[in-house]
């Protein structure tokens, strides 16, 4: 019932007692400090922010998850016009098991967490566990019987059990009960799945076993209401990070007053993330400790006041309905006045407009480094001008879904070349390939570029007929004007051109490129594709023509001629002269093998119709 995933050991060394590396948010926090490095693409049922399906498939695994629950980065691909593949660049994989949070999906570029759901399952002992081990050895009444495990070994085993396991372990014997009690007390982090028919007091009884809890993550499959919040508030006095995820069927009934009270009472709360906030109605949040706030599915809020002077990161996702009556301008105005330390802002709402941007630029947010204002079709080049003049040090700019055009890109390239490393302009219909090319030429630090659904075939139809007939149709209707894209960039790591059905030629010379998304590039001509990217690890090509997929594969696996480095030279057998020897004759096939393997994996991507 309650369920926590097994730790995902694909990252580095498994947890050791004192290291406590499997801490979700610390690496997220550190990532924010670094500010760059990772971004996760999100397929969206609705287009941009949400990643829905990926996390659901991972979470709905049963309790017997094992270490290979790799809801991995080579993710399911949905082939609809408004979606794109997930790809996450876990560039900082040196971090100890990075947090896998199912809703990193809607963080998109601002999140620095991998898509993979890690779950370290069970409560983690504190750093003082060393001390506790001493205690175990010397504890008189716990002399192990011959053949039984000493307490420290038992601790190690029990640590790795999910909460259910731990609770039932308490019933095995007295010494087990002692150890498990101690384990609960030492727990700092808990991830719990609250099942749909959970009894009242379920969560409370579990929470009361771990008063030292610092991080709590609840996946609600039953409804969430104020009693749960009160329960959490009561049982976890030291709570600093709280995350409430919501399955599709659960309803989050918390209203604004209750949330406000919770936030005000919890003096240590640093991070609050909550999904499904459609019943809030309006709130006033006052907290001097809060530094991260993520709320999603917001809808029609009468007022939103953030009295959180230390707020560094905020993410507000509005439920995408046209008749949302929230006054974003006033809200942003308030943010600008009260939360001067903001560094990362993400707002997703169809009601975003130029006036909202003006309110933002009027504020003096000196630390602003990441700005993401998505889905606002009323955001224009004028907004870009305003942003560029007020916040010239942005590292990430995401204006997906807006109406900016190539001249907006020009402004971006004028102001941000020294800092911008991520630029996301998906679903911007007025952006053309020349704008994209200009951006890649002018922004030397660019590492991630998302141009999904920008270069669209003006003659394309919305239905998805089967591929072969579609191709013929297109060929016969040959008065269409397609665009081509030539990109040469020394640092670009991730490039997404999903849905660019107006693209028919692509030339890429990006030696650092790891990930390329060509989903639904229906008209990309297989003979007008040149990939000179030696580090390419994955190419997403669902929804593309078979010939194209074949062309991609052959390009990536036969990278020899494309590599600009000189081929190694060997002397001919008769010693007469040196000739160039292709790579396969020298003992350097590892990289290529890996790439080939990866290509094969890509080839197995599911084409969803």
């Amino acid at each position, binding site marked *: 019932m309650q369920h926590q995933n097994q730790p995902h050991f694909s990252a580095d060394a*498994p947890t050791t007692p004192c290291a406590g590396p499997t801490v979700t948010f610390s690496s997220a926090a550190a990532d924010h400090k670094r500010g760059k490095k990772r971004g996760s693409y999100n397929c969206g049922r609705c287009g941009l922010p949400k990643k829905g399906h990926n996390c659901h498939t991972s979470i709905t695994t049963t309790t017997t998850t094992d270490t290979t629950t790799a809801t991995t980065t080579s993710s399911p691909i949905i082939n609809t016009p408004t979606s794109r593949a997930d790809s996450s660049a876990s560039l900082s994989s040196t971090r100890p098991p990075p947090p896998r949070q199912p809703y990193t999906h809607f963080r998109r570029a601002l999140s620095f967490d991998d898509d993979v759901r890690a779950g370290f399952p069970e409560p983690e002992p504190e750093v003082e566990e060393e001390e506790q081990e001493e205690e175990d050895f010397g504890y008189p009444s716990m002399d192990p019987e011959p053949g039984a495990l000493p307490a420290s070994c038992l601790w190690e085993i029990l640590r*790795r059990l999910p909460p259910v396991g731990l609770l*039932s372990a308490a019933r095995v014997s007295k010494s087990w009960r002692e150890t498990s009690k101690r384990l609960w007390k030492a727990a700092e982090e808990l991830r719990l799945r609250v099942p749909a028919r959970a009894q009242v007091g379920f969560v409370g*009884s579990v929470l009361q076993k771990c008063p030292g809890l610092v991080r709590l993550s609840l996946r609600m499959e039953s409804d969430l209401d104020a009693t749960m919040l009160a329960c959490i508030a009561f049982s976890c006095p030291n709570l600093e990070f709280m995350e409430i995820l919501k399955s599709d069927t659960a309803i989050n009934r918390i209203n604004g007053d209750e949330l406000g009270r919770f936030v005000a009472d919890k003096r240590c709360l640093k991070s609050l993330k909550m999904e499904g906030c459609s019943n809030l109605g309006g709130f006033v949040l006052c907290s001097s400790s809060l530094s991260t706030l993520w709320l999603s599915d917001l809808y029609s809020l009468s007022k939103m006041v953030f009295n959180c002077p230390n707020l560094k990161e905020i993410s507000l996702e509005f439920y995408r309905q046209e008749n949302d009556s929230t006054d974003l301008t006033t809200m942003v105005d308030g943010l600008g006045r009260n939360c001067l330390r903001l560094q990362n802002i993400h707002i997703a709402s169809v009601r975003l407009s130029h006036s909202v941007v003006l309110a933002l630029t009027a504020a003096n947010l000196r630390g602003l480094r990441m700005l993401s204002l998505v889905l606002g079709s009323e955001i224009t080049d004028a907004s870009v001008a305003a942003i560029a003049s007020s916040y010239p040090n942005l590292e990430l700019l995401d204006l997906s879904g807006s109406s900016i055009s190539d001249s907006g890109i020009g402004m971006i390239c004028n102001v941000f070349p020294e800092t911008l490393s991520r630029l996301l302009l998906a679903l911007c219909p007025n952006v053309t390939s020349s704008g994209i090319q200009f951006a890649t030429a002018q922004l030397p630090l660019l590492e991630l570029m998302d141009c999904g659904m920008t270069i669209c075939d003006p003659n394309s139809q919305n239905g998805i007929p089967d591929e072969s007939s579609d191709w013929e149709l297109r060929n016969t209707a040959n008065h269409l004007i397609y665009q081509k894209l030539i990109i040469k960039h020394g640092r670009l790591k991730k490039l997404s051109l999903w849905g660019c059905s107006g693209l028919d030629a692509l030339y890429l010379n990006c030696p650092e490129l790891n990930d390329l998304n060509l989903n639904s590039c229906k008209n990309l001509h297989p003979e007008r594709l040149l990939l000179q990217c030696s580090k390419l690890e994955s190419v997403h090509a669902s929804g593309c023509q078979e010939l194209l997929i074949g062309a991609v594969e052959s390009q990536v696996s036969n990278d020899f001629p494309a590599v600009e480095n000189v081929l190694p030279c060997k002397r001919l057998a008769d010693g007469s002269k040196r000739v160039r020897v292709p790579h396969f004759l020298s003992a350097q096939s590892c990289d290529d093998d890996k790439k080939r393997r990866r290509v094969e994996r890509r080839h197995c991507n599911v084409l969803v119709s």
Partner: protein
Amino acid sequence: MKFCAVKQYFDDENNNNITSGASTTMIPLPNVESHPLAILITYCKKHLKIKANNADNKKETEKEMEQYEQELLKKVMPQELTELILAANYLNFKEALDFFCRAVASAIQNKSIEFVRKFFGLESDFELGEEEKLREEFAWSFEGVDED
């Protein structure tokens, strides 16, 4: 040197002994049986070998290690796992300890209490009422328990 206990022994030895006969010194390991020790040594060697082979690529290392571990688990009897844990603990061999603990945890996860007791050769030392009380307290957590 992965066997930290042994390493420590060597360090101490070097401090005490001036003669350099260290290579033939016998190190007493009273708490370790020969069988688990043999397995641990194989594990260690394999681990180091895989690490050396895949010096650059961490993912490959992990993958190969996992494969090796899976195979190892098939060969080892569940009851031996406890011995292995004890040995790894005594030798202070962190990676092996973690691996075997994980293996045991996944083996007893979701199993009934009787199974766990049998696995470890333990007996219930609860008094009559206590166990019932515990069972009631968290009745919901005992749904969905696997068969032995």
